[in-house]
């Protein structure tokens, strides 16, 4: 009996450790940096840090937080509207440029923006499949995996993830 308990504990601990390792790996994949280029050929680095999903009345908000780095000795200006989000139905969503988020993102010379936010108002069915984020004009970075997500959130409730499988 004692031995069975020990084995069960070891198996449980092993499974938990494997799950933890998988989740840490997922988080690292989610937050990997991408070196991208503007349309004029200037390099910069973008790294997703978190994705927040929330509900406002009948709409859904998706807030992407990203770290932007400018390795150049000159200022780089990025157009926020180029950072579009695409869902599994190939519906495109443009980020909000009203109020708290300006239409142009200015990266100072050799500077870093630790937390730049991109806010999207998406349809409820956008969470039924994959969600991708267009970084620069080269990469579609996966924000959400193919499994459907049915958030049971009330108005004003938000959830933040640091990985793709949510």
């Amino acid at each position, binding site marked *: 009996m004692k031995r069975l308990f020990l084995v069960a504990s070891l198996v449980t601990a092993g499974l938990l450790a494997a*799950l*933890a*390792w998988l*989740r*840490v790996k997922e*988080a690292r994949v989610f937050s990997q940096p991408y070196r991208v280029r503007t349309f004029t050929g200037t390099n910069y680095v973008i790294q997703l840090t*978190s994705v*927040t999903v*929330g509900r*406002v*009345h009948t*709409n859904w*908000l998706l*807030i992407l*937080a990203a770290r932007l780095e400018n390795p150049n000795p000159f200022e780089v200006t990025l157009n926020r509207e180029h950072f579009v989000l695409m869902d599994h139905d190939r519906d495109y969503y443009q980020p*909000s440029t*009203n*109020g*708290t988020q300006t239409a142009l993102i200015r990266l100072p010379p050799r500077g870093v923006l630790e*937390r730049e*936010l991109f*806010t999207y*108002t998406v349809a409820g069915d956008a969470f039924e499949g994959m969600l991708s984020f267009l970084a620069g004009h080269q990469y579609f970075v996966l924000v959400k995996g193919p499994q459907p997500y049915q958030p049971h959130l009330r108005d*004003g*409730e*938000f*959830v*933040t*993830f*640091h*990985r793709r499988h*949510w």
Partner: protein
Amino acid sequence: MQRIRNLLIAALIAVLSAVVVFQHYFSPGARRTVRTVDAPAVLRQIQSLQELATVRHTFQKVIGLEEEKIPFGSERVLMVVLAHVKAGVDLSALAPQDVRLGPGHHIALRLPPPKILDVYIDEKETKVYQRTKTWWTPWMPNNPALEQQARQAALESVQLAAMQSGILSNAQQNAQTALRVFLQAAGFQSVTFD
């Protein structure tokens, strides 16, 4: 007889001419300045109004933000947020072709689309109601930025709620009313908006 009549007519014409000349040069109204109104001048005047905030909505929202921790557990913050949203029209974006002057002191304007000019949280009325963490992950550190994230989520949701409540159409109507009053005070008899 004929000569006297001609003289009288000539005298009458001379008197009338003198009256007309006197009226033209020496009456009080004769010294009024003549204003010339051209489209670039009006454009500059309107552009100088810059961002014309015409409506402000106030929202109180309860925001709950739950952050999933890596590898396990979660942290949650519940806030009551009071935020103000200001909307209006950015008149500095008005272009020369957006102002057209017509006959009879008429002006036609094409205003830029209304937009949200500012969203801000009223700090006095905003408070953290609850902050919790999963009890079985006591080793996980608290995220110091979680509250800031919740505030950001609140700002975004308030902005969306304001747009759903029709703040932009209100802003446009109010901007048209304000500009109509402004331009009529400046001498225009009719103001129309495209």
